[in-house]
């Protein structure tokens, strides 16, 4: 079920009413309802893959209990490895089997010993990368004795399958989300109203900005051989907004929806395009995944301690693995590696924690130096996004080659965007409004909370109405899935 669908618009109020009115605040009944709703939500897409979630849940629930009972360190490690093997095994089979098979075959052919590997027609289960990482965080935390394993199977199943964040995050840590399933939930007007606002803002980001930007980005990337460097760069900019608004829009709707049910999910995006260097960008982009890799991969590898070579190695590992997590394609690996290259100079000169505050805090506009830094960082991310969006490495390189040519200085014209459903002028106007709203709200959890903080209700309602009208007038009329569903 898509958040931006009529199905969800019907599903959500029904679950809300059942949750608060029918369960009468009985915790176990509420958790059971969440499990049922979550399985229905996921099964709407393909019920066959519910068995995978259930299997993953059973494995990690059992491993969690075993880790509690076993004192022997070697045995504990074996239980942990079993959980990791099962989870990564499922992920590896569904997501990476064909990639490895094809690349092994290509490598053998390259060295003159061609081999035949069968590629399978495997459907990638939606959200597998997200819930796999979420369940693994539970087992690892229990192994590290940072978390008490749960005996409450319903609560654990609800934690793994919680529908707001099941298919595209935020990837929650057991330590944050699981205890919320044990606690009695009280309905809070303020939290629920904030949730509604976040849902509205997320929906606007998805259906107005992301879907329309996608129209432009797809046109440019799909016909990249016909465009000058300037338009190709604009294609990268459109994709940058598409992926940001698509994914952060999803996160906003997820966090907002969870709030309606009395849950607090972690923040996933913090205005990443207002970053002054790549290190800051990565502290603000897909926070739940970045911190997951930091806690469960980077720090166990030694983190930023040790010699320069160790630090370089660890940085590359973390970025390349992060890229590979997104999909079985060399373009994602290149995207990760390029970000590692951007990050390394900051790490080696120990300037990677320079910008911990908010850009231009307390000012209308940032100082010129910070503005230039922000623009440079955005340009670097756009170049990296070109790898992320391109069909293959050759495609990415041909685009970058054109951007690097004199055609970068060709003025883009309206004819370059013929075929998009939205007028380019309207698209740029919408992007401008969106950036302005994000800038004004950059010190808040999400942009709309800036307008919601206004004292006069008339102003607040005007802001909400503006967004609703913009959605009504400019939303793409076809229900398009969120990009991160494929990861």
């Amino acid at each position, binding site marked *: 079920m898509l958040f931006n669908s009529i199905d969800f618009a019907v599903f959500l109020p029904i679950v809300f009413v059942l949750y608060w009115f029918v369960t009468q605040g009985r915790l176990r009944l509420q958790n059971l309802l969440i499990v049922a709703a979550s399985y229905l939500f996921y099964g709407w897409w393909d019920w066959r893959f519910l068995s995978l979630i259930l299997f993953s849940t059973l494995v990690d629930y059992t491993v969690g209990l075993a880790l509690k009972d076993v004192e022997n360190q070697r045995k504990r490690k074996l239980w942990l490895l079993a959980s990791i093997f099962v989870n990564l095994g499922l992920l590896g089979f569904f997501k990476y089997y064909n990639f490895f098979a094809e690349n092994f075959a290509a490598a053998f052919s390259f060295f003159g010993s061609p081999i035949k590997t069968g590629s399978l027609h495997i459907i990638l289960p939606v959200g597998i990368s997200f819930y796999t990482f979420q369940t693994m965080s539970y087992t690892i935390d229990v192994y590290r004795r940072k978390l008490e394993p749960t005996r409450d199977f319903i609560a654990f199943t609800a934690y793994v399958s919680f529908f707001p964040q099941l298919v595209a995050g935020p990837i929650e840590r057991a330590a944050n989300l699981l205890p919320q399933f044990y606690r009695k939930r009280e*309905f809070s007007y303020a939290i629920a109203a904030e949730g509604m606002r976040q849902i509205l803002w997320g929906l606007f980001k998805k259906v107005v900005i992301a879907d329309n930007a996608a129209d432009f980005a797809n046109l440019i990337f799909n016909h990249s051989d016909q465009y000058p460097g300037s338009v190709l760069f604009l294609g990268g900019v459109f994709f940058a907004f598409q992926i940001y608004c698509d994914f952060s829009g999803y996160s906003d709707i997820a966090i907002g929806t969870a709030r309606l049910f009395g849950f607090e999910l972690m923040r996933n995006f913090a205005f990443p395009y207002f970053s002054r260097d790549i290190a800051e960008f990565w502290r603000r982009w897909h926070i739940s995944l970045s911190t997951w890799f930091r806690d469960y991969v980077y720090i166990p590898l030694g983190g930023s301690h040790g010699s320069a070579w160790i630090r370089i190695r660890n940085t590359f590992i973390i970025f390349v693995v992060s890229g590979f997590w997104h999909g079985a394609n060399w373009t994602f690996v290149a995207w990760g590696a390029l970000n590692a290259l951007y990050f390394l100079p900051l790490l080696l000169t120990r300037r990677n924690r320079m910008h911990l505050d908010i850009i231009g805090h307390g000012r209308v506009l940032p100082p010129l130096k910070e503005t230039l830094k922000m623009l440079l960082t955005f340009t670097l991310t756009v170049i990296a996004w070109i790898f992320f969006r391109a069909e293959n490495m050759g495609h990415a390189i041909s685009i970058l080659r054109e951007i690097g040519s004199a055609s970068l200085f060709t003025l883009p014209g309206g004819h370059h965007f013929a075929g998009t459903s939205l007028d380019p002028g309207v698209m740029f106007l919408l992007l401008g409004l969106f950036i302005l709203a994000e800038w004004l709200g950059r010190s808040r959890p999400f942009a709309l909370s800036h307008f919601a903080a206004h004292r006069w209700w008339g102003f607040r309602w005007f802001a909400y*109405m503006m967004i609703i009208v913009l959605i009504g007038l400019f939303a793409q009329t076809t229900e398009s899935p969120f990009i991160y569903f494929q990861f």
Partner: protein
Amino acid sequence: MHKELSHFLRRLLLFAGFALPVYWLCIVVTGELLPQRYRENLSYLRGAYGHTFTRMQEAGATHDAGILFLGSSHTYRGFDTRIFAKHGFKTFNLGSSSQTPIHTRALLYRYLDGLNPDVVIWEVYPETFMLDGVEASLDLISNDHNDRYSAGFLLQNSNIKVLNTLLFSIYRNTIWPRYNQKEQGKKGMDTYIPGGYVERDMACFRYEAPEKPVEKVYKPSQIRAFQKSLAMLQKRHIRVILVQAPVTRGLYATFASHQAFDSLMHASGEYYNFNDIMQLDDSLHFFDAHHLNHEGVALFNRTLIKEVFEK
């Protein structure tokens, strides 16, 4: 808890009560002030193409049509009422752009009593059974009166464009009922012929290589609407003739499942597929891949009269 919850629900209802009229007002202002390219999701197309407005006005004033034609643009561009008149038939052409069975059903409810035909010729182009019907909804909402069937289009399509256009159309029909009430009979290359037919100035079609055939998937809701309409017509003892009008060979070849569709239609009633019955020339008898030109219409209509009424 219940206090906070009821406060939340009350505020939500209050906001909804505020938002609905304000939204409507914004749609009206946008529709009145902005050109089409700046309001992507408001598509009020009165008199835009196909002469639907004139046809619906005429349908409301016509009684006892004899033969009633139903279907998509294949219908209003494919059945020339003058040719049928020459053969002694009184006819009315109630085709509209991309008309799907769901829309045909609504039009039957609106006009069948007045038109009171003895025979219905329903042009059943397979693609109309696959469409979501947004284009047809926008056409009818803009050019016909709105009633509960317009709300049905909205529920059927679940499309914001249909909602906005319906809101704007209700406003226009209520506040400015006389606005834009006259549609020109001749628009570009198209001329409206009384009785619902639209004649295209003579033009020929440049051949295009056919695309790869694809399996067509029909929407169950369209099949249901089709069957219900058939049942309704049969109940009134109206003879229903299902017809597939000729399209270019190139276009026809893109359908992979003619047999399945033909079987479905044969099972539904009296059915003629003129793509099999006639051999037309793509270049000489069509003006685009879908539509017959003068020459093609004349040949098709004469063949149909011979096959259906004179054999």
